[in-house]
């Protein structure tokens, strides 16, 4: 028996036990309700000070009163108004919480992404640099808009329809494993070449081979130059022989008869030597370009690797690829003192 019961009988109390229990639960329920209200007020930042920014979009699809505005993935404000401007655009009023204003710097752009979830557009503000002053209140933020999901679906539907008409999808389906295998093979080949294996790999990446090639090309070029000089000398000798051969006609009639065609022969020979010389000059130039060609082959290999990577990042080969963003690092700064 407690003090209450000891002094007053249950009949004389204002509330009986049952009523008190009910009252207690109602009071607890009220407290819970109150805490929900407080949490809700805090979450919705009902009493937070706000700063207005504006942006002009071509379509308000997916943007509603109360749509969330984000910076670096964190909520910084909400859309408070939509109005039609005179140049047929829609002016969106953004209410940014005062304590988050620092996150929006001069030169910031707003990205309206309509591909996040059905019916809702995500408004993300990106600042180019953080070492510039914050954007002034009332400023209009330039906008980059993505097409809506409906637009994309419509274009994809058209694409699928046309592909289906040509029975392309089933062909692609059959082809995909082979393409994937081919890419794997290509990667392996490039890796082999890059590691200097195989004839091509050795030719392209082995420094020793390159040096040897340079020596061979150089000596080849010297040889060809010497050959050219020899041909020139031979030509000179023939020119010197020409009058002697003409004089030979007086010695014997047979010889005269035989030497009848000699001028034409010499002319032909001259032409042949000239052509040979030109050909040698061309070959010489080509041979000198070989080290350059190996360098170009290397750069082509790198480009092919990049191309393969970018193709593999494109749907449908991109499945399972994880993109790792950059690690933030502060810019070096001068000392103030």
């Amino acid at each position, binding site marked *: 028996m407690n003090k209450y019961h000891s002094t007053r009988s249950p009949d004389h109390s204002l509330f009986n036990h049952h009523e008190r229990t009910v009252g207690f639960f109602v009071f607890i329920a009220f407290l819970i309700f109150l805490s929900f209200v407080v949490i809700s007020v805090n979450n919705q930042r009902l009493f937070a000070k706000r700063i207005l920014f504006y942006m002009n979009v071509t379509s308000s699809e997916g943007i509603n009163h109360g749509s969330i505005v984000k910076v670096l993935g964190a909520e910084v404000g909400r859309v408070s108004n939509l109005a039609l401007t005179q140049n047929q655009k829609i002016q969106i009023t953004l209410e940014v919480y005062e304590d988050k204003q620092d996150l929006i710097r001069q030169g910031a752009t707003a990205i309206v992404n309509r591909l996040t979830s059905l019916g809702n557009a995500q408004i993300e503000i990106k600042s180019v640099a953080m*070492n510039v002053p914050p954007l002034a209140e009332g400023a209009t933020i330039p906008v980059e808009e993505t097409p809506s999901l409906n637009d994309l679906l419509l274009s994809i539907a058209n694409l699928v329809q046309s592909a289906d008409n040509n029975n392309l999808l089933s062909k692609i389906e059959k082809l995909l494993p082979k393409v994937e295998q081919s890419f794997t093979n290509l990667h392996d080949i490039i890796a082999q070449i890059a590691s200097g294996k195989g004839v091509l790999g050795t030719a392209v990446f082995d420094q020793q081979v390159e040096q040897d090639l340079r020596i061979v090309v150089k000596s080849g070029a010297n040889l060809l130059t010497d050959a050219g000089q020899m041909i020139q000398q031979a030509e000179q000798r023939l020119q010197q022989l020409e009058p002697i051969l003409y004089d030979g006609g007086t010695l014997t009639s047979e010889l005269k008869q035989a030497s009848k065609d000699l001028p034409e022969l010499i002319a032909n020979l001259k032409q042949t030597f000239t052509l040979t010389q030109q050909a040698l000059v061309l070959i010489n130039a080509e041979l000198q370009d070989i080290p350059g060609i190996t360098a170009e082959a290397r750069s082509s290999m790198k480009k092919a690797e990049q191309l393969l990577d970018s193709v593999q990042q494109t749907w449908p080969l991109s499945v399972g690829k994880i993109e790792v*963003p950059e690690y933030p690092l502060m810019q070096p700064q001068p000392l103030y003192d």
Partner: protein
Amino acid sequence: MINKSSVLCLSLILASCATQPTNSPTHLVRGHQLSQQGIQAFQNEQWVKAERLFQQALRYYQSVDASQGIAHCHINLSQLELRRHNFEPAQYHLKQAKSVVQQSKLTSLKLRLQLLAATLAMQQQKYNQAETLLRNLLPLSPDFPAKKKMNALQLSAISLRTKLAFVIQKESELWLQRYQTALQTSPDNFIHQARILRFQAQILIQKGELTQAEIMLHKILAKYKKNDLRSGIAATLGDLAQLHLQQHNLQQARNFFSRAANVYRSLRNKHKLTLISKQLDQVIQAINAE
């Protein structure tokens, strides 16, 4: 009754389906977010907040063993501590960063580490060591600085080297000229522009043109105030105090030292606050003696 409750349940299920799913960020992404926020806090000169954010980011990176993230966090923390003149923590983070960079072969960060080491040596008044480290960062050619755009690291290195030239009083004008030429490639960099103006004011003081120097320092102070750069404001107030002390304007010197101390107090820079307070005490003693 059953119908009503089932309708309620169904509506609740539908409502829960309609809401957006919460994307819980991975440790790596969370590390990036915290680092980014830390950098913002650093830019706003909120050192305590920046330190907390960098430390949190570091823990996230450590939890997934992201070497590059760990190295970046230590570098950020080292630079932060250098700005606060906390030499021991700065040295600790620099050492940690070096270790990670060596182990993970992050060669691209080596120059950055050298710059941090040079800055630390400079602040600890180890001028020979600072000069040696800066020599590696600024390989001088006859046409130095080159006309091509210098990056932030090179600009900071040349700024530090100019400061060193002023401290050791050797080739200060030459280095200032080099610094100015280097900045011509990035003319919109306010922090470096203001630093050059302060060096120019120092040259005027050396030449005895004190009035001109004072006018220039007041202009720089106005610019720092406009850009809300408290470190710059404090340093310029310190410069003005020194200028007045040189002219034996003790009341003015006390005024500027006191204002500089207030700014350093707001920045929670204990090292600089102690130095300024000592000078302020000496000035007050001199005033009382008069």
